[in-house]
């Protein structure tokens, strides 16, 4: 208890003396956390949206002729042998026509002069949810196009590919902002502690002569790093939360945000971000002490 109170007094004394540089470091840490968590928030929401879009993913195989029952059994066997699927639906020419008519609603009369068999028969394949990567979908689609009687396979290639590139780009941005977070927090905290150590060299020397233990001298610096991590990350996350609220308020309605159903970080992710920041800041402080403190 005495140790703790003495160390806390020493820490508050240090903070009072070096508050301008500490404040600047706090802002830098907050900004880094804000930048990183902003892109990370977009990324995880996009991934989540991708997963929900993935639930609706279906591959449609347009066939030359309607497969007979034996052929249908054979096709199901071939498809499931290649990849397990949720469901396989066979659509006849007539079913396709009726479906189109239903979709046209009041404008159904445009079909009046058309032959009800003008649409090709098709097979709808609903893949399992674990079939998520673009490569897997492409490979499955290529296989399906080799099935006997298949003319064409469609699954919204363009959209899936664009979405895939977008998530890839976001992933790169998240990684880069993560690196930025690591570098800035570690270096800024290390630099601040270095300045504090150099500015207090005389004091540390006297403390050493008076019999201060290594933990008495080092712990306040570690606490400073710890506090930078706690307050820096919290401030960054609070700023992000307000930004999130503002975006929600101003971009609600029919638009991208509504499709995506944007949500804020779960308490677990918030905890992880704060813990990571604490780890980085305390690590920065520790490395600086190892380099510049001769105790």
């Amino acid at each position, binding site marked *: 208890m*005495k*140790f703790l*109170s*003495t160390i806390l*007094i*020493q820490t508050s004394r240090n903070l009072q003396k070096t508050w301008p540089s500490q404040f600047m470091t706090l802002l830098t840490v907050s900004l880094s956390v804000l930048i990183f968590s902003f892109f990370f928030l977009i990324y995880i929401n996009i991934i989540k949206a991708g997963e929900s879009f993935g639930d609706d993913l279906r591959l449609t195989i347009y066939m030359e002729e309607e497969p007979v029952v034996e052929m249908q059994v054979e096709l199901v066997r071939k498809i499931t042998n290649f990849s397990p699927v949720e469901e396989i639906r066979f659509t006849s020419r007539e079913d396709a026509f009726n479906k189109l008519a239903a979709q046209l609603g009041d404008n159904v009369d445009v079909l009046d002069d058309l032959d009800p068999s003008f649409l090709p028969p098709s097979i709808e394949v609903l893949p399992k949810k674990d079939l998520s990567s673009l490569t897997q979908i492409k490979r499955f689609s290529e296989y399906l196009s080799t099935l006997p009687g298949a003319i064409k396979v469609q699954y919204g290639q363009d959209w899936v590919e664009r979405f895939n590139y977008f998530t890839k780009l976001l992933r790169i941005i998240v990684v880069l902002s993560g690196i930025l977070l690591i570098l800035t927090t570690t270096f800024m905290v290390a630099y601040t502690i270095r300045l504090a150590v150099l500015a207090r060299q*005389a*004091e540390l*020397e*006297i*403390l*050493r*002569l*008076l*019999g*201060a*233990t*290594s933990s*008495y001298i080092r712990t306040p610096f570690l606490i400073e790093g710890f506090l930078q991590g706690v307050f820096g990350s919290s401030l960054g996350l609070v700023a992000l939360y307000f930004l999130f609220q503002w975006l929600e308020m101003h971009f609600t309605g029919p638009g991208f945000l509504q499709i995506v159903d944007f949500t804020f970080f779960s308490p677990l992710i918030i905890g992880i971000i704060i813990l990571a920041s604490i780890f980085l800041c305390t690590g920065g402080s520790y490395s600086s002490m190892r380099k510049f403190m001769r105790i």
Partner: protein
Amino acid sequence: MVEIVRATKIYPPDVVALEDISLSVRKGEMLFLTGMSGAGKTTLLKLICGIEPPDKGMVEVIGKDLNRLKPKEVPLLRQQIGVAYQDFKLLPDRTVAQNIAMAMEVAYLNLKTIKKRVIALLQQLRLEHKHEALAGNLSRGEQQRVAIARAVANSPSLILADEPTGNLDSKTTSLVMKLFEQFNSWGTTIIIATHEESIFRKSDHRVIELHSGRFVQSEERTTTTLNYML
């Protein structure tokens, strides 16, 4: 309390500060270390408080051989030794009270005790009105008294004072000496390095003289001291 056996200290390139010194100081003893400037008094005190290691020989303080002391044991030993440095080693941007409190803070004494002791020491050294003054704004004499207060603040087993009255008038000198006598009467071992004859002239305590890094024999000392006085 202090055992020094054939200790030698040479500063590079070849300045012999202490040569083949042996000294034994009993627990509760008060000892005056005298000699001219450059005789080796400060070096000897540095050896005793472990700031400098001897190049040869053995130094044992409070039962600990300093050559064999583990790094972790150094702070604990230093907490038991109060040192009043010749250059004071105060923090000029801290108040007098904060400077004195430092010695007790490193030993994790509680705040109440620290405050009480600081006030008591300042009263004893007639510095109570300087409690909140910055150490850098004090006169050299006042700074010296603050350094002495800090040295005794933690009630150490051993007090080392390097020229503790160098900047003091006779009245303040007697105040400081009274403080040392008081601590000595409580059983604290005190070693005072000084070249001021007036401090130890009438004292019953042992006086050892250093000359060019060696102890002067007692008969020899009388002559040297007389020469020094002349």
